[in-house]
């Protein structure tokens, strides 16, 4: 239970960073933290104390596998989600660099040409 709570704390920290910080690099870091909080959450769903890889060996019974084998699906999901996160992160940083080239600043409050 405490682990779930900690992921929530991480998530909230990320959201705070995203909302309160003006520097766009910090915003990107905040977004990445929220992303990782969710990834951690998915991993914890699949966690099992004393878990083993869900592979059926010769000396195992089906009951043993059902009792100790971890659910492999969350790990597959997390891998996908990490890769997607990487894609978003690289796009974010490249847009951020282009923004710096144009505006000569990382301060979001000075990047404000669009209004209304």
């Amino acid at each position, binding site marked *: 239970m405490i682990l779930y709570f900690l992921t929530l704390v991480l*998530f909230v920290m990320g*959201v705070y960073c*995203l909302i309160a910080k003006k520097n*766009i690099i910090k*915003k990107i870091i905040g*977004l990445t933290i*929220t*992303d990782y909080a*969710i990834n951690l*959450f*998915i991993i914890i*769903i699949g966690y099992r104390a004393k878990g083993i890889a869900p592979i059926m060996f010769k000396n195992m019974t089906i009951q043993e596998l059902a009792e100790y084998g971890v*659910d492999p*699906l*969350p790990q597959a*999901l997390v891998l*996908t*989600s990490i890769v*997607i996160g990487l*894609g*978003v992160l690289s*796009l*974010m940083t490249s*847009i*951020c660099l*282009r*923004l710096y080239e*144009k*505006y000569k600043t990382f301060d979001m409050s000075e*990047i*404000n*040409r*669009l209004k*209304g």
Partner: protein
Amino acid sequence: MTMQTTYPLFTALPLAAAFFNLLVTKINKKAADYIAFLAAGTLAVLAVLTVFEQPFAYRVGGFPAPWGILLVSDGLSSLMLVIVNVIAFLSIIYSIKYMTTYTAKPKYYSLFLLMLTGMNGVVITGDLFNIYVFLEIASIASYALVGFGCEHEELEASFKYLILGSVASTVILFGIAFLYSMTGTLNMPDLARQIEILGINKAVAFVIAMFIMGFGLKASTVPFHAWLPDAHPSAPAPISAMLSGVLIKAIGVYAIARIMFNVIGPNEAVSSILMFLGALSMVVGVFLAVGQSDFKRMLAYHSISQMGYVTLGLGLGLNPNVPPAIAAMGLFGGIYHMVNHAVFKSLLFLCSGSFEYRTGTRNRYEMGGLIRKMPVTSVTCSIASLSISGVPPFNGFWSKLIIIVALIQASYYVYGAIAVLVAFMTLLSFIKLQRFVLFGQLPARFANIKEAPFGMTFPLVVLAVLCIGLGLAYPFIDQSVLQAARDALLDKLSYMGYILGG
């Protein structure tokens, strides 16, 4: 039968085309146009063919259903496929000429095709995590396309859209993970069955809230709309047409509708939330639109407002306490309006692109009298304006009428009155647009402009014909694919049946 084996092509073909596009253009610069044109054309033909198929489920890799990934084809997904692919095809035709003003055309086509992959994927899949993956493919491609011009405003809009869009995706992923931890499955027909057993407990309600926020942001319903008026006008015109015409429907409204109707099932609380958000979007969008001077920005605000009608119709259909016939009517109106909005909003954005291409400005107060210089673009623009403002006999009139009648019959008088008021405000706003852009005095510096080239006017004419056709065909539309789409949403039981595959 043939469609069943070629169904995965809807994602595979644009994905492969996006990849080979970049390779081939290393050798031949001209090839990008042809590859994109052929890929989008093939997809449009395939999409039209799916309409004539019976509903089926395709098992990817042949795994049996709860474990493998399902692709589901029913009335709603084939309707969405037709909208997405036909409008994408027309936008590609338009891009061939329009995008010559930009550099790096092959990269543009690749991103376009990636976005198409994502949207098709969201529409055909029957797996919740797959929805997330395809939604991210479509979103990432659209973030890049919004900033494609790489000027100050475009980059800023793209960055805003990226931050908000990523928050939405994160929240959606959180909802999916939560649902998985409760039910142990991601297969949507299977989830529908599990939720039937669980009932709507607190955890499911939490997931619903996550999905409404996440997909609501993608569909830009009002409290989450801040990115849309920046992002949609900043993109190149064919992309604006895709974003406003198709993307917010495929990854926003379609996903909400599919999950709320087929997976979670009719629910009064969700229905009232959706209806409230819909009505709020309608009012806020239209009031902000009236004062805009930028042509495309005004259209973007109207997108928010028009999507409000769709959400309102869906919300009414989701209410279990309304008599089924009236709920079905509201839902039918919502789906019909979604199709109509796709047609006329993409037409309007393409028209704005043609005006910008020739005049070099988007400020509607600087234009004027263009009907004398650009007759085809102007006439199609008026047809679209009349459609969106709901003037009979154009298509927008019928769908708004159905939604309003359904609301009144279900005794939602306030929402009905709001819908009428918003229709009136929309008319006002578009009369103003016509007055400033099409009629009035032609500024001296536009004395020598010509009509847009054929490659750009052709898609406009096709879309305008669709606007009129969908309106005039109203008496026959009852037995059409729209009906199949509505029935697919209302029939949760047969959706659960897709788990058997076949």
